[in-house]
């Protein structure tokens, strides 16, 4: 991204510590740039530090993306030479395929539900676990535990609990919801998977938010208390605003995760029944590997990449900008 690349040091530049438009640069940066004499050392340092990462990034991110773009203009079954150029045909097909369009909608639904349900719940639990309550460490552990499981284990475990006559059916009957075919009902299955995803990933969000809460100086809380603020006012006016950067990062991770959701639906339902739980990723794997349509699959992958990338850029630009100030030397204007 342009932000980072432009920051990489131009040794000769004047005025250490202040960018051209006058905003303060991060303290670390100011220290490093102590003058032209250190430029050789600096370059060596940069080469050593950035080199391996750069090689990996180019080799395993940029090149594969370029290759996928290249494949995506062919009709290609993965075997033999690439010769059947279809131009944008694969993209046209994807964007007119109702199954793929529904898959995008499913991703968006998951992302929306994460925002509406996971986020408030996570903040609430994090606030709770941040208080001095008995067994706090244990509770934190319990909350975080699901995240430690691999998605495959989670998916298999929940599939077993959700099968007809399984644990969840007993539970839902006990609380009066009644038994349902949780994974076989095309109207329910997507939400079932959302619940499982929440179960798995909320622990991570909560730990993230807890870390954010720990970073809020207790003096602020005390000051608010001295000023006669109620607990609710303190939370609303002091804690939550200061938790902002953490929340924005959580949203970012959650959105990207939702857009790429793959393992849970793939293992639990394979995207079914009748594509009711398909996501962009399950669609892409199904077309690429099961149908031997690697050209088309590549086009779908490129679309998925563009959606995530555009989202990430916009989010960086509009939401994360303040938070990353100081971490990056110069912001995109």
């Amino acid at each position, binding site marked *: 991204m342009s932000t980072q690349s432009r920051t990489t040091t131009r040794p000769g530049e004047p005025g250490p510590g202040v960018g051209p438009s006058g905003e303060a640069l991060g303290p670390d940066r100011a220290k490093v740039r102590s003058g032209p004499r250190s430029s050789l050392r600096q370059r060596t340092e940069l080469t050593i530090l950035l080199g391996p990462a750069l090689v990996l990034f180019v080799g395993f991110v940029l090149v594969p993306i370029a290759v996928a773009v290249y494949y995506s203009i062919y009709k290609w079954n993965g075997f033999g030479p690439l010769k059947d150029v279809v131009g944008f045909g694969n993209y046209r097909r994807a964007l007119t395929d109702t199954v793929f369009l529904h898959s995008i909608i499913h991703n968006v639904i998951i992302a929306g539900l994460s925002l509406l349900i996971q986020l408030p719940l996570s903040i609430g639990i994090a606030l709770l676990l941040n208080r001095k309550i008995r067994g706090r460490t244990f509770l934190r552990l319990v909350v975080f535990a699901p995240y430690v499981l691999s998605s495959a284990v989670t998916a298999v475990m929940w599939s077993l609990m959700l099968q007809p006559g399984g644990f969840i059916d007993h539970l839902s009957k006990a609380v009066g919801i009644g038994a349902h075919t*949780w994974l076989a009902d095309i109207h329910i299955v997507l939400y079932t998977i959302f619940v499982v995803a929440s179960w798995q990933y909320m622990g991570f969000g909560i730990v993230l938010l807890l870390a954010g809460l720990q970073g809020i100086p207790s003096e602020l809380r005390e000051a608010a208390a001295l000023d006669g603020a109620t607990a609710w006012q303190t939370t609303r006016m002091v804690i939550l605003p200061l938790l902002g950067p953490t929340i924005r990062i959580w949203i970012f991770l959650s959105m990207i995760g939702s857009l790429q959701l793959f393992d849970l639906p793939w293992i639990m339902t394979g995207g079914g029944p009748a594509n009711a739980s398909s996501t962009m990723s399950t669609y892409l794997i199904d077309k690429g590997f099961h149908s031997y349509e690697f050209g088309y699959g590549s086009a779908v992958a490129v679309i998925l990449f563009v959606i995530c990338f555009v989202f990430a850029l916009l989010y960086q630009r509009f939401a994360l900008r303040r938070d990353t100030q100081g971490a990056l030397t110069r912001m995109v204007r």
Partner: protein
Amino acid sequence: MTSRTTRSLAQRSLKGRQLAAISVVAVAALGLAACSSGKSNAGSSGTPTSGGSSSTTASASQPAPSGSSAGGDLNGGKPVTLTWWHNANTDPGKSAFQKVAADFHAAHPNVTINVQPFQNEDIKTKIPIALQGTPPDIFQQWGGGALAQQIQSGKIADITQFTQSWIGDLGKGAAGWAVDGKQYGVPYDYHVVGFWYRTDLFQKAGISDPPATLDDLLSDITKLKAAGITPIALGGKDKWPDAFYWENFILKECPQDTIVSSLNAKKLSDPCFVKAGDDLKKLIDAKPFNSGFLSTSAQQGAGSSAGLLANGKAAMELQGDWEMAVIPPLTSDKQVASKMGFFPFPSVSGGQGTPGAALGGGDGFSCSTKAPDACAAFLQYLTSVPVETELIKANAITIPSNGKATDAIADPTLKKVLAYLQGVTYNQLYFDQYMTAAIGNAINDAVSNFIAGQGSSADLAGTVAKAASQ
């Protein structure tokens, strides 16, 4: 594609169609000698030739590599290591295959086989990727349209010259591993699909004979439901079990010529294909399936469709012969095998289907171009009577590709299946394997959606042409 995979997932790698059994041409196995042209016995490098004889004389307990292409001549006598990818990643298949590889190496010391078992779904995704780079030298192959696509990579050996002397032993079914008359793979077992049922539950519901027609089946479904028994288990999550229904109805509604020519033309325009969809609709409307069948897997765990049958929670399942290997581990009932019965897919009134038609397939292996003669010799060994006999006894395969090895089948129900298979005159490869992967996958998706209540019989029949146009 998914289909074959998961089917064999039972990891005993079962599958098979019966054809072999039928046509079992009695051509003696002495084959390879002809191809590797007499050089074989030229006393080349240390050939310990275990038994040094033809397969027929080898004792069953110590199968010897068949054929006379004795050891050292393979790959010009130079040492070679062949990597073998198969999907029998659990016992008994895993150790059985390991032993086959070791025995072959003992007979041909210059050929070392590096065995790499993979889980079935894994191997399905690994093979197409490997064919874009360096493929394994011997690898799982289900034949049909996917094979025809894979050979476009130029990395699968045409082994016709090495197999022609003995491929006849494997019957007509081996043609499923040939493209344009050239052999690109060899099947080691065959499969046929039919209804597996619980004799005890049928009895409980007062059904004396298994249904022979769709109407019988529908009335039996009513009886089973009245007795509080789930009539049919269906693993809809995996989709290929869904497709079995439609394809079987097609075999009952359409004559062989129509099916084959329509599939080859990639257009199912004959009205009989729509009628098959209507038949399937009739069955679906009887609501015979287990609760949640749309998300039920076929073979994994007690909650799978096979598991329901194994535990007496459902009375029937439409599956291949591998069912007998899949079921026992899914239940604590040690007597389960004796409670299982088999009946062919019921006929429909007015159907124009060719009598003696059945749906099936098989498992096999293809060779890379690295040392095709050694690979072919290995496949000849693998499919020889003594080795397949051993594999049957070890429960690693159900119905052998080599018709002369069928004597080793001991289970009475499987014997019935074998007899049925031997009466089959036209064994249609599962559509998803017969067609290219894209069309096959589209068929499975479409039938799965149809069973979930989406689309008409006409839409279903139109799937093939639609997928072919993309």
